[in-house]
């Protein structure tokens, strides 16, 4: 899998260089303020983990970076240039690829078509040029197999896949097309232990290939396995912003769960 990433990664990336910077970013949905005054840096060769309660604004944050919603306050810089994306296309064109929590797949379309949607391989530059279908099928199949997912038929509508299989397609797609920045919104949520492991390996490989990775997860263990930088959101605001080394896994877990509640839970549930 490292080959895929290495093949596609932008070779001009230098470790530590900030690719995406958010400064005081805020976002309101009408009367609802989902995000306020958040700072975040996604640097090349680093994994930034965003953690937080349900409804804390994590998805909102990454939707801003990936161009799905424009932000309503603060500034965003990509490659040190201030930007406000009008559409996800603009983000994609800057090499920012995203796995959305709600997946962004088209249920009635075949798996391989979903994989290449928006970035089809074509045989020529004229408008109705044929797609290189055979190649697209092969690549889609191959990338999925690398994640340990063998779908019965790469031509089946993606709506007939299991939840986890769909998740894998979305991840494989983002990894394949993420040239500079890779954003993942709870990629391991629907995945089993094995597939989660594969995804974590992907994240590590992307980091090693020099990409900037933004990784949203509810699992502090997962975050701690690969993260360089941890941001915890609470009610739309950042309550913790720490580099690896300045925070331990236990601290992270405690922060996320709201202090002692977790200890109590473990005690309560402990049956042994």
């Amino acid at each position: 899998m490292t080959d895929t990433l290495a093949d596609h990664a932008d070779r001009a990336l230098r470790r530590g260089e900030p690719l995406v910077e958010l400064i005081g970013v805020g976002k309101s949905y009408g009367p609802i303020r989902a995000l306020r005054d958040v700072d975040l840096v996604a640097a090349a060769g680093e994994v930034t983990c965003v953690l937080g309660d349900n409804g804390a604004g994590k998805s909102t944050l990454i939707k801003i970076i990936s161009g799905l919603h424009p932000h309503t306050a603060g500034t965003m810089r990509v490659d040190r240039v201030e930007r406000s994306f009008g559409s996800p296309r603009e983000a994609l064109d800057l090499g920012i690829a995203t796995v959305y929590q709600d997946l962004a797949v088209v249920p009635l379309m075949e798996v391989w078509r979903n994989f290449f949607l928006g970035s089809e391989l074509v045989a020529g530059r004229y408008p109705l040029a044929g797609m290189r279908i055979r190649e697209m099928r092969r690549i889609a199949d191959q990338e999925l197999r690398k994640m340990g997912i063998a779908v019965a038929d790469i031509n089946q509508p993606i709506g007939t896949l299991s939840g986890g299989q769909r998740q894998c397609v979305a991840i494989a797609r983002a990894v394949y097309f993420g040239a500079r920045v890779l954003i993942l919104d709870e990629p391991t949520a629907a995945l089993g232990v094995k597939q989660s492991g594969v995804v974590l390996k992907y994240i590590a490989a992307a980091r090693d290939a020099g990409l900037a990775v933004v990784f949203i997860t509810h699992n502090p263990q997962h975050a701690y396995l690969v993260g360089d930088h941890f941001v915890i959101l609470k009610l739309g605001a950042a309550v913790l912003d720490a580099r690896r080394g300045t925070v331990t896994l236990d601290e992270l877990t405690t922060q996320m769960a709201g202090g002692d509640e977790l200890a109590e839970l473990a005690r309560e549930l402990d049956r042994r």
Partner: protein
Amino acid sequence: MRRSLRLLARPEAGALAAALVIFVFFLVVAPSFRSMAAFCTVLYQSSTIGIVAVGVGLLMIGGEFDLSAGVITISAGLVNSMFCWYLGVNLWAGALLSLAFCLLVGFLNGWLVMRTGIPSFLVTLGTFFVLQGANLGVTKLVTGSVSSRDISAIDGFTSLQKVFAWSFPLGAATVWITVLWWALFVALAAWTLQRARIGNWIYAVGGAADSARAVGVPVVRTKIGLFMTVSFLGWFVGMHLLYRFNTLQAGNGVGNEFLYIIAAVVGGTLLTGGFGNAFGVAIGAFIFGTTSLGIVYAGWDPNWFKAFLGVMLLLAVLVNTYVRRLSSAPAPAAPAAGPPVPVPAASGKEG
């Protein structure tokens, strides 16, 4: 590859079976249907519906409707005819002007839908009414009557007629060039949907526009393009009508928009978008043509015409659904409530 071919062939297999059933049925019950001439007449009738239906089918796969597709054929012809008749210029100039006009209408439809978020059903309903009124109002203003004047004596008529309304004899039958054009447009649409990148986008914007946008599909451009394709094909049929009949009734064309939608849906296009097939739409148009003329060839009581038409259509759709179920062998649907997974055959809110 074998497997994939089977899958690609699937959507129209049902429609094809239905068309065959209906066709054979009329061969059996209507002796005068059994001739090359009758077949060519059916093909011609199907082509005049089918050409626009191809565009409407694409648009519906892309998740939108165009109710102005019927009247725009007449608008196209009227613009051409009246412009040239009034100013006495070459008909080619009028045809091009008319093309520009139609593309503009298509663009406006699409732009309004995307810009305001008003459902295309309403926007194009508005366009439909406006065009219908303008057809009548302008024609009356320009020609003083409600039909356009004979243009067969104006320069360029013969060459344009060659392009849009040429026909040649084939034994006792007459083959109209629209049938060939129809085949061409269907082939082009089928290629686009199955093989071209834009086809991928069309399915995506119809199946899940938000998801498509999220992965970088230019949703707005794709949809506007689809609206313009429909108007282009409407223009094409308008040219045929004009150069075949020389004059046009300003009030005509109304109602055809539903024939196009019917052809598309009978051919297996999902009314809610995201699923369908160009060949299916063509077969849908053919089923409609066969049925409506077959009833005449069979000489059935014309008072019951619509009743026969309704029954035949329902039959066609039933055969279509049944064959598609068989060939795709989806999950055995839970009794009555329709399959709970998005197997296209009968899914979506219509399931």
